[in-house]
Every structure is written in C-alpha cells, then in structure tokens.
C-alpha cells in the first residue's frame, strides 16, 4: 500500500508547489513596488495573446524541452546531469561546423545533419563525465559543473581564435549560408492576408523537440534500454545482479542526455541566430533542471513545464520592455520554482501524505 495515490504525487504536489512559488513571486513583485496583477496580465498579454508572443514562447520552450529531456533521461538512471549548459554549447559548435563547412542544398538535409552534429558534440561532451562516473566513481554533478566551465573556455577560444571572421567585433562565427535557413513559424504559417508569428524565432526545431519527446517516451518506457536505465536508476545493486552493466548504462544514458542537450543548439544556432554566438545557451541548460523537476521526468510533463518556462521567459522580456521591472524577476521566479518543486517538495508532500493516510484510516 502506498501512502498516497500516484496521481497526487505526479500532479497535486507539483501544482501546489508551483502555487507556493507563484505566491512568493507575487510578494516579490509587490515588494519592489509593482502590481503583481498588472505584471501578470502584461506577461500573458505579451506571451500568449499574440501569435508573435507565442512564437517567442515556443522558441524558448523548444530549448527547454531539449534540456529538460536531457536532465530527465539522465535522472531515470539517477544521474544528475548539471552539464546541459556545456553540452548545449558544444552542440552549438557541432551545428556551426556542419553549417559552415558543408554546402547544403536544402534546409531539410541541413537540419538532419545539424541535429546529428549537435547531438554528437553534446554527447561527446557528456562522455568524459559519464566515463569518469562509471569507471572511477567521480561524482557526476561536480564533473559536469566543471565541464560547463571548461566548455565555456573552449568555446571562447574557438570563437575568438579560430572561427571569428576577420575584422568582426563580436566573438561569433560568420553567418550561415542562406540554404540552411530553417523555416520559422512565420515562414510556415503566415499568409499574405494574415501575417502570423512575425519576426518570432520559433522554427521547425519545435517539431524536432516534439519528436524528441515522443522518442524519449518510447525509449524509457517501451525499450529494453529504457527498462535497464530505469532499473539501474532505482537500484544499481539490482541492476548488477540482473547483468545490466553500470558502466554501459551510465555512459549510454549520458550520451543520450548530452545529445539531447546538444540538440538545443539546432533551435538557437541554426534556427534563431544563424551563426554561433558566444552565449547562445543563456542558462537554458540550468532551466532544464527545473523543467525536468516540474515535469516529473515524464516527456509530457517536460513539454508542459517547458512551455510554462517559455511563457515566463517571454513574459519576462515583455515586462522588461514595458515596465521598470528588471528581467531578473524571471530569474527569481525560476529560483522559486526550482526551490519549491525541487528542493522543498517534501514540505508539500509530507502533509499531503498525512492527509491521505488520515482519510484512508477514516474510511477504513
């Protein structure tokens, strides 16, 4: 007998946690002398009431889906991949090399190659921490943090010293050729009469992200590998008994995780900037942690949480545009969401469990 029905753990706990985070956020807005209601309606207005707003929301969401899936796949094997940021940076490098040095006839080919390049580089960047965890027991949280910094230095070096076009000011690659331009939502859904998603960066990568959700679901719950990943995550001693190699699972899971994180770059680098810039990831790797936590490591949850965070990002940008509220408010809200859904979830779960237990006793 469990203490609490599954649905309560999967839905009720995160919802209440989210609510607590929202209440505190409102308090913060009040404290800096602004109206939470106005702020919220401005965010909704700017992020959800216009097609271009959705275009931004879904653009950010695409990033978060990839990094959220990356964190959650690793989490099923009880590996805490904090390295999404670095893996995504390297993914960007993969995309840039694919786009700059191979002449693509059409974007449809380029996106496949770009995704492969991104996934490959992201996976490679996850490989060393994975290997060290599996073979030498080095705590993957620390190694992936270290690899984030190493990635930043590496990318810095590559952009400044190798890939920056002569005479350019900012550390970025040259623009990708037009052939690899990915269709944006504007290209796809606008008609002459009704312009939609004008200027918004959302692009076909969003569908790639949806595809990734589906594939991850199949992988985790329908394949042998997923069965082994989850088994290893629940009990590594049992996995050993069953002949599931911890080294293999750790490495393979982290490769998949790193690959997913890397694929975020298809959206930012190929889809939006169309060149590799220094800080293309902008913390999305870390948001992935919050997204995975909120989404309870399930692709559908990750998708919904990613859209929520996309909304926060876009809404936050709108706030900064039209009010004096700094965009850091969004960082604070993010922090509160991570805190309540991730670290303090027992604060919600414990009383709920007690309530369910008491309810059951009364019925019995």
């Amino acid at each position: 007998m469990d203490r609490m029905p599954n649905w309560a753990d999967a839905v009720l706990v995160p919802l209440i946690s989210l609510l607590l985070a929202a209440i505190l956020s409102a308090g913060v807005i009040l404290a800096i002398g602004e109206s939470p209601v106005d702020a919220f309606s401005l965010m909704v207005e700017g992020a959800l009431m216009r097609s271009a707003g959705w275009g931004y929301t879904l653009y950010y969401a695409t990033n978060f889906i990839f990094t959220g899936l990356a964190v959650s796949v690793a989490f099923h094997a009880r590996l805490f991949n904090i390295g999404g940021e670095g893996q995504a940076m390297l993914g960007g490098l993969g995309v840039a090399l694919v786009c700059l040095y191979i002449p693509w006839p059409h974007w449809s080919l380029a996106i496949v190659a770009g995704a492969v390049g991104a996934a490959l580089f992201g996976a490679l960047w996850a490989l060393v921490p994975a290997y060290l965890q599996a073979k030498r027991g080095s705590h993957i949280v620390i190694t992936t943090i270290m690899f984030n910094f190493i990635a930043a230095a590496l990318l810095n070096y590559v952009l400044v010293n190798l890939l920056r076009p002569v005479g350019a000011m900012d550390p970025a690659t040259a623009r990708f050729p037009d052939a690899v331009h990915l269709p944006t939502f504007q290209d796809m859904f606008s008609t002459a009469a009704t312009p939609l998603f004008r200027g918004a960066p959302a692009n076909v990568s969003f569908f790639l992200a949806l595809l990734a959700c589906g594939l991850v679901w199949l992988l985790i719950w329908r394949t042998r590998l997923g069965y082994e990943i989850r088994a290893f995550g629940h009990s590594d001693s049992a996995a050993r008994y069953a002949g599931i190699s911890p080294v293999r699972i750790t490495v393979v899971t982290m490769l998949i995780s790193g690959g997913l994180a890397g694929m975020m770059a298809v959206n930012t680098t190929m889809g939006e900037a169309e060149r590799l810039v220094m800080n293309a990831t902008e913390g999305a790797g870390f948001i992935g942690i919050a997204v995975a936590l909120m989404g309870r490591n399930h692709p559908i949850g990750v998708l919904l949480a990613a859209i929520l965070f996309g909304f926060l990002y876009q809404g936050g940008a709108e706030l900064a545009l039209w009010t004096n509220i700094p965009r850091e408010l969004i960082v604070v809200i993010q922090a509160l969401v991570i805190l309540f859904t991730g670290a303090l979830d027992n604060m919600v779960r414990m009383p709920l469990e007690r309530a369910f237990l008491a309810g059951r006793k009364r019925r019995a």
Partner: protein
Amino acid sequence: EPALIFDLGGKFDKSFNEAAFNGAQRWSQENGTSFREIELQSEAQREQALRRFAENGNNPIVMTGFAFGNVLGEVAPDYPDTKFAIIDMVVDAPNVRSVVFNEHEGSYLVGMLAAMASETGTVGFIGGMDIPLIRKFACGYAQGVKAVNPDATVIQNMTGTTPAAWNDPVKGSELTKAQISQGADVVYAAAGGTGVGVLQTAADEDILSIGVDSNQNYMHPGQVLTSMLKRVDNAVYDAMAAGPDLETGINVMGVGNGGVGYALDEHNAQLVTNDMQNAVDQAAEQIASGDLTVHDYMSDNSCPVN
C-alpha cells in the same frame, strides 16, 4: 515617442551606455517628453526589442553598440517607415543612420595629456573586450603619447575576449595594479564598466587615470587626469531631436565636429596645466583641419606605433 536600447553592459556603466542615456535624458527634459528604453539581458532580446518598439510605433529607435549590426540589418527592411539610429556600427539600409566616432582622434589627445602628465615616462592602456574597435582606441592613444614623448612606454592590456570583459571591475583593478608595478603612472581605461575598477584602483594607488566616453572626471576628483569624451550623448540627442525625420546614412563624429574630445572641468583643473591644454588644443585644431592625421587601426588592422 523615440526609443533607446542599451547594450548588454547596461545603462549605468558610467561610460558608453550612460552617455547615451544622458543624451536622451537631456532631450527629454528640454522637450518635456518621454522616451522608451530597455536594457538588454540576452542576445535573443535584441531582435525582439527592435521589433516590439517598431511595432509599437516608436520612432526613431536608437541603439548603442556594434553588436546590433547583424540584427538591425535584418529588421530594418521589415519596418520601412521607422527610422533607426545605430551607434558604433555601419548598417547599410535606407532607414538607418549609422553613427561612428573617430575614437582614435580623441584618444590621441588624451594620449598627449598622459605623456605630459607622466613622470615615469610609462603610461598604461586598459581595454575592454579585445576587438578592433578597442585597438583603435589604443592605437590613437599610443600615437598621442609618442607624439609628445617618443621614448615613452605604453603598456597595453585587454580585459578579455568576450562581452564579459566590459563588466569586470575586479580584473580592471588587477590589471591596473600590474601596470603600476611596471611603472605606469597614468592609465587610460577604455573598458566600459571594467573602467570603474581601473579608476578606483588608480585613485587608491595615487596615480592618474583617464576615463572614457562620458566625462568621468567627477568619479575621483583630482585623480582623474581627463576623460576621452565620445559624445554618444550628442549623437543620441541629435537623433531624438530629429524625430521621425531623422537623416539616414553614415554620420562620422570626429574632433572636427565635436564628436570626440577631452574633458576639462573643475575636477581636473589643477591637473591640466595651461601648457598642456595649449598643446592639446593645438593638436585638435590640426586634426580638425586635416593637417594632422591620426592613423585609424580599423582601416588596416595595424598600428604604426605601440
């Protein structure tokens, strides 16, 4: 209603962006009207801010910093009825005014002052991000120093290679200490927010510093030799004053048209003697008249002196 977009360094960098803000502020106070502004936090916001302001009917839209170049090139054609002004970068579009400054000329002038004020014959330069634009500052400065004292040593350091270099006062401070230990007694900071650390350390260690972009003499009165003025404020003021009728094309601001210069006020009056002032003013005149050409690093990516 015009709009102003600040680059990632932020509006209060005491330097480049702040100069832009001051210009806009001056315009708004004189006319009793308001303007829209935003400080960018992320790359993806550049385009968003441009479009949102354009759609909102803001005109003209002024932005500070070369980093907008790429994005503006894409966005400007979508809003032919909106005028854009970009500072520090040339964007070729019919509705864009590109304002560029002859920073090398202003730097030349403060370089002369540095050489004249230096007792050790060694002066320093601390740049922000290592890009051609900042090398242009450095090169002009070095030329000015050598013009006064051909035997002088100019120590040059760049803070970094990424935009973070604009906002790293700790590093600015350490670099200043390093230059002082190498004998520098005047240090010129062309490094945005990083310069705050440079000026602070120079004041703490009792040497002279030179500010950049805005007039920074007030920050440590009596200890900032001068500031290389880059009249971003004027550029912004002019653009806003012109309103929707903003003249487009390339607008070069140099010593001749008061676009760059050096700052003299009550805070550094005792530091700049009459002789020094005369010498510099004379050089300024020569530059304005074309008798003296200061080499522009960005013209060939090299510097004749260093």
